[in-house]
């Protein structure tokens, strides 16, 4: 079976598994669950799997997508439960299906974030954050392929909403997944560079949903 796609969650302790290690972990999971992945031809055969948009270590996700191929036909309905049982804590397969759309059509991501402030008041931070992200342009310096460069991250943010959550500030945003890719870690980084007095002491993110360029759900 070719053109297969998994949608899975990566939460809890599994968020610290790096992209490369995750590929290895999933491969072993397939093997343990008794599914034979299709391998590439050639001198150094490797399983034909690819995960769209590698997550950064520490970021959780409820909507990871992985394309894969199997040597034999299997019942896709029972695959999620069987594979989940063969995976470490925190990785949960939500569905397996034959895909029609290429991962390149994926355009927007919905993310949830938590900004933690140890000593500062969440309500006033929340207000200041709204103001900061209401700007038309937010230029920051970041590492690019050609060394350090200036980038405006604002166009890559389609929506961003902040709310007070106890002592923290919560945020929900729709950001560009590719072309350009906006790593959510840049949201607090921008504050550290441009307005450090409202930068959080710690920030963490969860990917919630994937969309195409028309903001239709991408599967």
């Amino acid at each position: 079976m070719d053109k297969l796609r998994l949608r899975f969650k990566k939460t809890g302790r599994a968020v610290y598994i790096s992209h490369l290690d995750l590929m290895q972990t999933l491969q072993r999971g397939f093997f343990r669950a008794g599914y034979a992945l299709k391998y590439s031809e050639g001198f150094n055969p490797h399983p034909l799997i690819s995960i769209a948009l590698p997550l950064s270590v520490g970021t959780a996700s409820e909507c990871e997508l992985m394309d894969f191929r199997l040597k034999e036909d299997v019942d896709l309905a029972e695959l999620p439960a069987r594979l989940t049982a063969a995976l470490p804590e925190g990785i949960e397969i939500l569905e397996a299906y034959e895909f029609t759309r290429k991962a390149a059509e994926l355009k927007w991501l919905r993310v949830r974030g938590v900004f933690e402030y140890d000593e500062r008041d969440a309500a006033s931070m929340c207000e200041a954050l709204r103001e900061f992200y209401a700007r038309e342009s937010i230029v920051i310096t970041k590492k690019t392929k050609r060394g350090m460069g200036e980038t405006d991250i604002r166009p890559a943010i389609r929506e961003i909403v902040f709310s007070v959550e106890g002592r923290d500030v919560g945020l929900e945003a729709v950001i560009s997944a590719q072309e350009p890719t906006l790593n959510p870690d840049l949201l607090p980084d921008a504050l550290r560079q441009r307005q450090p007095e409202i930068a959080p002491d710690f920030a963490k993110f969860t990917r919630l949903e994937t969309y195409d360029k028309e903001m239709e759900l991408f599967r």
Partner: protein
Amino acid sequence: MDKRLERILPRVQKPARYTGGEYNQIIKDKTQVDLRLAFCFPDTYEIGMSNLGMSILYHTMNSLDFVWCERVFAPWGDMYEEMKKASLPLYALESGDALSEFDSLAFSIGYEMAYTTVLDMLDMAGIPLRSADRPNLLPLIWAGGTAAVNAEPMAPFLDLFVVGEGEEVDNEVLTLLREAKLGGWSKREFLVKAAQIQGVYVPSLYEVSYRGDGRIAAVTPKDGAPARVTKRIIQDLDAVPYPTKPIVPSTEVVHDRVSLELFRGCVRGCRFCQAGHVYRPIRAKKPETLIAQGIEALKNTGYQDITLLSLSTSDYRPLPQLCDGLLDYCEPRSIGLSLPSLRADNFSMELMEKLQKVRKSGLTFAVEGGSQRLRDAINKNVTEEDLLHTCQIAFAGGWNSVKLYYMLGLPTETDEDIVGIAEMANQVLHCWRTYAKNKNRGVKITISTSCFIPKPQSPFQWEAQISIEEYLRRVNLLRSSITAKNVTYNWHDAETSLVEAVLSKGDRRVADVIEEVWRRGGRLDAWSDYFSFERWMQAFASCGVDPAFYANTEIPLDAVLPWDHIDVGVRKAHLLHEREMAYASALSPDCRHQCAACGAAKLLKGGRCDG
């Protein structure tokens, strides 16, 4: 997850090694167990998770339903700094709970260079380092592993050692500890009782007195502790549990594969080799057991590699049968089978071809000594013909890289022996020129030397180690003897070897030095990133301990040795005889040709070795 930890993890290298949550980890309800045990490996996650002993004992100890045994490793430097900054105590991976919540810490100590890390882990757990400073029964701090064959340098820190193989005795200790905890025993009461279990060594029940010349006058047991602690062995390896559901790390570790242990012990009796003596007698597993366990473990882990472990793999009689059985399963699934520690003398073409179908790596030979005379003296039964014959087969079969390992400073070594190393490399090169199938790819011959470390419970336990200066002189002699440009030479530094020699052969007075090194920031000393020779030398000086007394001075044959009260099976008289044979450059037959009545057979119920 602890908030402090959550903030640290994204900042450190390879955070997945600090989180637990791996596939096949064992989770129990902490309110339903009587004992919470932290199984501590005094090195990194990557090393510890590659250790078969750790994996075996994790499962055997967890097989007791009143125990929840969890894993703890030493954090790498960046994590260590972050944990200190955040005042985050050392925690166990399964539950994430701080070690202060545990009833006991059990350390697996496989090598001396881990000693400072043991202290560091105790400190990170907020536990006083010395047994005498821990008046209560709990937490009980104990250890096992090869280091237990001379536990003295660590004696003041640990409440109890287990000597020998842990599968049974560890559970006996835990069963007694549970009784003690539930019955409210004092620590003393428990230790006195525990000392009655075969294989348990309670250092505080032995008084050590010294002579004017610094040697030991006597070791006197108290409170009914046995005069000599006899090590434990497993009688029937086929019956002992093997972890067919080992934990699969979610991040890369050193050995990412299934490991099968073919046998314990060794029939060879190389005189420099501690393992070859302290793991006796030889006991093998049946190939059927191994094949079944290997396949089950492959299924349960999803690993794509399996390796055969033992001191000398080719001494496993049913090796062809075992390889066939495993290859039947592995080949169609592209699973690699590797066989380390094959000997040069009975390497068969057939076996090599079989492996070649699956995977081909470089050849390595532990030659150890540069001349036949020296190899006879150390009882390393490898001849130049054997080696060249194997190389011939290998080169003809397409191999093109050979690594040759030697030790410098072996007893009776002469300059001629050292020059012989370079000559042998030339012979190997000549062999390649004559037999290589494809010369276009070139050949790579690597010579590696390390400085010989005399080890307790081996025939060379009385020997002096050569000084660092002398080692360097020998290195330079070898270097100048190597002329061929296809031959590379790597030498390990002798500074670590000197420290290792002191820690191996040390007595209780060396404990102060270990603690002092730790106080000066020493930890993870097995890593060259962290080892500081200067720090060790400063600690020796400030404790008034002379490293040369332990490392570079021959011990009189009639002296009481610091480890004499630990009985690993092999008699001292046998070791002494082997030492004499060494000085006569005479070989001793291996166990299979002729039993030398070394003493180890007494550990077996039937009293006879498989040989």
